[in-house]
């Protein structure tokens, strides 16, 4: 397998504070990486760096061979970032949100129906986001990431706010995405849950990846509807 993500000696300063202090991380294509560490260790900053949202002050980072500084827009088109906020428009329905995010990602294949079915969002499809429960909102957020068919999934606490059924759906989604060739990094405090899915575990502390342990690979159906887009595969 080739490296989907290669981070070397990455330093990220946020308002002068070193959030990453020389982090190294290599992630293979089609793998699931658990990113673990205490609060403030730099997990979210590392995910945001890989999404081209955090400024790289020193070092280098490449996503699917693209330099994160020189080819930032290309990189952004390849990744899907799920953060703590919903990133959904409150006055639009779930359907309208998903269709919007699909339409502004012209290089991606449009899979709204498949995503909705997979995330069991059918009942809420035509409801406004502001009328959804926390769990439904979280599922809709994940759907908005999935509909873009990212080649690299960057998930920050994806199970937060979900019930057991929702958590299981997310787990299956992650496994299928990796099986179809996408690289998935999951920052989570639910270590037992994500460790079962993961092919490697990276531990981050003080802005450094202090350990990266390989656990073994995972392979699912190659005909998964959640395969990454052509440009990144």
């Amino acid at each position, binding site marked *: 397998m080739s490296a989907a993500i290669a981070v070397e000696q990455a330093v990220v300063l946020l308002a002068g504070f070193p959030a990453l202090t020389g982090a190294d991380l290599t992630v293979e294509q089609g793998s699931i990486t658990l990113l673990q560490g205490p609060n403030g260790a730099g997990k979210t900053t590392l995910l945001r760096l890989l*999404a*081209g*949202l955090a400024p790289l002050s020193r070092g280098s980072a490449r996503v699917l061979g693209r330099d994160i500084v020189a080819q930032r*827009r*290309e990189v*952004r*088109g*390849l*990744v*899907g*970032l799920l*953060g703590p*906020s*919903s*990133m*959904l*428009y*409150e*006055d*639009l329905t779930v359907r*309208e949100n998903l269709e*919007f*995010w699909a*339409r*502004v*990602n*012209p*290089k991606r294949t449009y899979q709204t129906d498949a995503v909705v079915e997979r995330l069991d969002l059918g009942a809420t499809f035509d409801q*406004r986001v502001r009328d959804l429960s926390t769990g439904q909102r979280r599922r809709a957020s994940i759907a*908005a990431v999935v509909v*873009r068919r990212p080649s690299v999934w960057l998930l920050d606490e994806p199970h937060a706010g979900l019930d057991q059924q929702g958590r299981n759906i997310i787990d299956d989604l992650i496994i299928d995405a990796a099986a179809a060739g996408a690289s998935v990094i999951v920052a989570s405090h639910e270590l037992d849950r994500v460790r079962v899915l993961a092919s490697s575990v990276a531990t981050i502390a003080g802005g450094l990846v202090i350990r990266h342990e390989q656990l073994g690979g995972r392979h699912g159906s190659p005909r998964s509807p959640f395969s990454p887009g052509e440009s990144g595969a």
Partner: protein
Amino acid sequence: MREIWAVAEKDLRIELRSRIVASQVLPFALIVLILFGLALDADKATLRAFTPGLFWITVLFTSILTIQRSVAVEVESEAFESLRLAGTAPWRIFAGKALAVSVQLIAIEVVLAVGVIVLYRSSFEAPGVAAVGALSATVAIASAGSLYGVLAVGNGVRDTILPMLLLPVLAPVLIGATRAFDAGLGTAAVNGWAWAGLLGVVAIIYGTIGAAAYGVVLEDA
């Protein structure tokens, strides 16, 4: 073009649902017109003479609120980050946002035009030049506003600093639009088409600068 329409349609759909502009900005615009009338002691001749300037000052005030609403839609949902991640060219996002603001401002201007006819007893003697001037001025306002609105978000004090940033930039638009309306309403003997043409040039300049700079300011939003 698909991305531009997607952004514009999204903003307009949100407005249709939330009705913030219709229920808050539009009444504000009408109240300003009425207050101008009260301040000028309801002297119809004076009101008619100053209608072009009063009309466009009202449009500028309401444009601040419309632009703030356009930005707030993204800020409330923390969607600026998602837009950055969309992989689409920033100028397309800018064009979509400016298009949506333009449509809303045109709707407000239509209501305000009826307002000055009813309240100030003004009449459009040359509606063509007034319409072309208004269209160009609206595009210029929406272009500058869409850019400065995001710039103010990056500054972190968007609600208070936007008028201070935007209104000086829109001063040439105010002058040109007022002159074009002078011709349209017959309140002064000016070459309205020349002023409308000048407004068109300003709209192109502001649109071009906005499209070119939007990617930079979006990074800080």
